[in-house]
């Protein structure tokens, strides 16, 4: 009979030994296969834990059991409290509005001056004013019945140019509809803007959408659609794809404070945070959604305050201060790309123009209110003051540039008006990648019909196929 060395056996048992490695997922699928029984990670975790096995969960952080002084609930990480206290939205002053220069165009804290070159500042100023001129002329065109619809960007030019200047030209842009300046900064030409509004044959989208629904692949600006906030979760999906392709690019997604009330806004913020997507959410809070003032839109501290609730770094900026918008977007971009995280920017501004050409805003707000923003706190005049302070701009230059932009836009409009519309065939193309037989039949039918009844249709306005 072999002699048992008790001391040895004990030491053998008490030696720390690593547990056999268990492949959790294999065990799950084996059990599932054998018993046709669905076992989740969690139930398996629990049963293993009961049996005295400890292992690192691959899917979620389960609180360490020894931390008894903290709540163990998987849904939150916080402390116990014995005070019965509701967290209220009115306990603090609101997220402050970041600004770089005051209304006189003076830099407040020199360390925050982005020190953009004269050339760059002039480009931004010229862009903002060109957009302003285009808005005025196309607004008038609509009043005269030359185009069916228009939406101006009056008062929000600073948010467009300040943010787009801080982006990489390859970053993807998703907009709502009041971001023409972003597209203009990217290089969308006056011709392209005006052709879209006129829906002529040179319009990229063949005149299928209402005016101001721009979009162009070459400039990474995704086509605008009318339904509000739908672009938000889409932008998150694109950001996820960019993250996977490791291009070092991000997505910026613009939307108004009204659109933020849509369910899609909630979806987007939550998906972006949980899936760690490099995206900048850029909210233009201009005080109104058509006629609805913000106090009927939300009761919290604007949009920026929602970000932290989703786990999103958030900031509020003076949207009429182009340098502040630039700084904030630049920092947001860096955060988004380097940490692969979403960022939320709320740019505070004021919608000086009517909501659209179908709206008369004097029906729901005072002219004095509008006048205040137009005269006392306008992004264009503030940048002009900054430029004048630097001796980069003066009245003569202003006058010449105004004439120049007017001439440019007028010429473009005249040219666009003369162009015919795309051929009728375009009405049923691009529904699918290839035209299905059923649609082909319908196209043939409408063409035959129009040929027979051509005098009742505006056929001469359209190119022949």
């Amino acid at each position, binding site marked *: 009979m072999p002699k048992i060395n008790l001391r040895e056996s004990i030491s053998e048992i008490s030696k720390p030994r690593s547990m056999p490695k268990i492949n959790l997922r294999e065990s799950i699928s084996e059990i599932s296969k054998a*018993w046709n029984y669905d076992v989740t990670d969690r139930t398996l975790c629990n049963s293993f834990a009961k049996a005295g096995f400890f292992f690192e969960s691959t899917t979620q952080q389960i609180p360490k059991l020894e931390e008894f002084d903290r709540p163990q609930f998987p849904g939150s990480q916080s402390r116990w409290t014995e005070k019965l206290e509701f967290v209220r939205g009115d306990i603090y002053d609101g997220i402050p509005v970041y600004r770089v220069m005051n209304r006189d165009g003076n830099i407040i804290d020199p360390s925050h001056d982005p020190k953009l070159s004269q050339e760059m500042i002039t480009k931004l100023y010229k862009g903002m004013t060109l957009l302003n001129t285009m808005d005025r002329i196309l607004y008038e065109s609509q009043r005269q019945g030359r185009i069916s619809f228009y939406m101006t960007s009056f008062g929000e030019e600073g948010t467009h140019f300040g943010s787009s200047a801080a982006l990489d030209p390859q970053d993807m842009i998703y907009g709502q509809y009041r971001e023409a300046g972003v597209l203009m900064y990217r290089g969308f030409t006056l011709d392209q803007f005006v052709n879209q509004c006129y829906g002529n044959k040179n319009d990229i989208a*063949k005149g299928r959408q209402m005016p101001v629904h721009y979009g162009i692949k070459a400039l990474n600006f995704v086509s605008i*659609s009318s*339904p509000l906030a739908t672009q938000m979760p889409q932008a998150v*999906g694109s950001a996820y794809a960019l993250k996977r*392709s490791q291009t070092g690019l991000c997505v910026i997604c613009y939307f108004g404070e009204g659109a933020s009330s849509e369910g899609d806004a909630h979806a987007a913020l939550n998906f972006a945070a*949980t*899936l760690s997507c490099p995206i900048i959410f850029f909210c233009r809070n201009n005080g109104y959604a058509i006629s609805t003032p913000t106090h009927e839109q939300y009761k919290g501290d604007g949009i920026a305050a929602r970000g932290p609730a989703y786990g999103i770094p958030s900031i509020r900026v003076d949207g009429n201060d182009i340098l502040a918008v630039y700084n904030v977007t630049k920092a947001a971009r860096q955060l988004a790309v380097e940490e692969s995280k979403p960022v939320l920017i709320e740019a505070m501004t004021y919608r000086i123009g009517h909501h659209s050409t179908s709206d008369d805003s004097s029906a729901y707000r005072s002219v004095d209110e509008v006048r205040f923003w137009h005269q006392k706190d306008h992004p264009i005049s503030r940048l002009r003051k900054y430029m004048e302070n630097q001796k980069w701009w003066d009245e003569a230059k202003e006058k010449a540039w105004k004439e120049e932009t007017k001439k440019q836009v007028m010429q473009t409009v005249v040219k666009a008006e003369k162009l015919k519309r795309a051929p009728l065939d375009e009405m049923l193309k691009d*529904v699918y990648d290839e035209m299905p037989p059923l649609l082909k039949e319908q196209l043939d039918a409408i063409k035959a019909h129009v040929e027979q009844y051509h005098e009742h249709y505006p056929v001469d306005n359209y190119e022949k196929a």
Partner: protein
Amino acid sequence: MALKQLKNATFFRRLTSFERASFLKSRAQFKLSYRLSHFTYVPDTVSASDGETARMNLFQAVTNALDLALGTDPSAVIFGEDVSFGGVFRCTVGLQDKYGRDRVFNSPLCEQGIVGFGIGMAIAGATPIAEIQFADYIFPAFDQIVNEASKLRFRSGNEFNCGGLTIRAPYGAVGHGALYHSQSPEAFFAHVPGIKVVIPRGPLQAKGLLLSCIRDKNPCIFFEPKILYRMAVEQVPLKDYELPLSKAEILTEGDDVTVIGWGTQVHVLREVCQLAQDKLNISCELIDLVTILPWDKETVINSVKKTGRLLVAHEAPLTGGFGAEIAATVQNECFLNLEAPIQRVTGHDAPFPHIYEPFFIPSKWRCFDAIKKLINF
């Protein structure tokens, strides 16, 4: 195989215990047989040229297709509610382990977010495969599907598209799913130019059609009849293959009546055709429509021109159901060939009920009766 034996064993054990209580015998047996299904699944046969095959049920065929899609396209990703651990219907089992967390992942519980996110991925050039847990819960994403996914290519002048997007969703009656685990929403989507809507009838089709949807250059909705997930078992080729979209399939040729269905209903109709043959000596031509949008008008019309009679059956309600579209088109194209009014046997114009399901669905006896009407008109 072992799985099936196990299942059968349990079933018989239960049956025996019920038999012991002889006063309950007939009722209990009816209940059991009803619960099992309202149809008999007849496996599809593979041809010798299809190469190596394996026995798969429908959820395994879906997994197999998803596996191949991820394997052949590095930009393809799968996401939705609870897909990481394998999905509530086991369709994504093992895929996260094989392809990693960034390619197979859970999303927050938000359908409009899932579809919007998928559209965005597709716009960026990736191949998103989104899962909606039940077709009943696709409606929060209706806006993203109808206003966004379907119209993107058109509205942008083909500058952008989300053709890479596929949305999968379990679909149809399941015996006890009641209002929100039974719906067949295909007709809502049939009214949406720009998307494709596809419904397979078994594992072999599911694999080939799903791969086609994933690789098609248009956004596709792929409805998986969930009652077939475990019940439908057949030999499925292991190779990577695609089946054509917008192509109806003639399953049995016949001369007297054309019978059209899709998804589970095809199997109900298969039995109906056999009943008609056995009891009425009627020869039915059975067509699986396969693709709801854009649908294969030609195959249907050619068949009705031959038979002169048409029965369309679907689980969804009658009014505004896709049967109406087929009936109106056939009436227009085959007016001179029709010898009886087109019959539609469908769910009723009510929400899908729990305990009344046997009376609600277009059962084989309701379909059989419609064939009698067609013949005796």
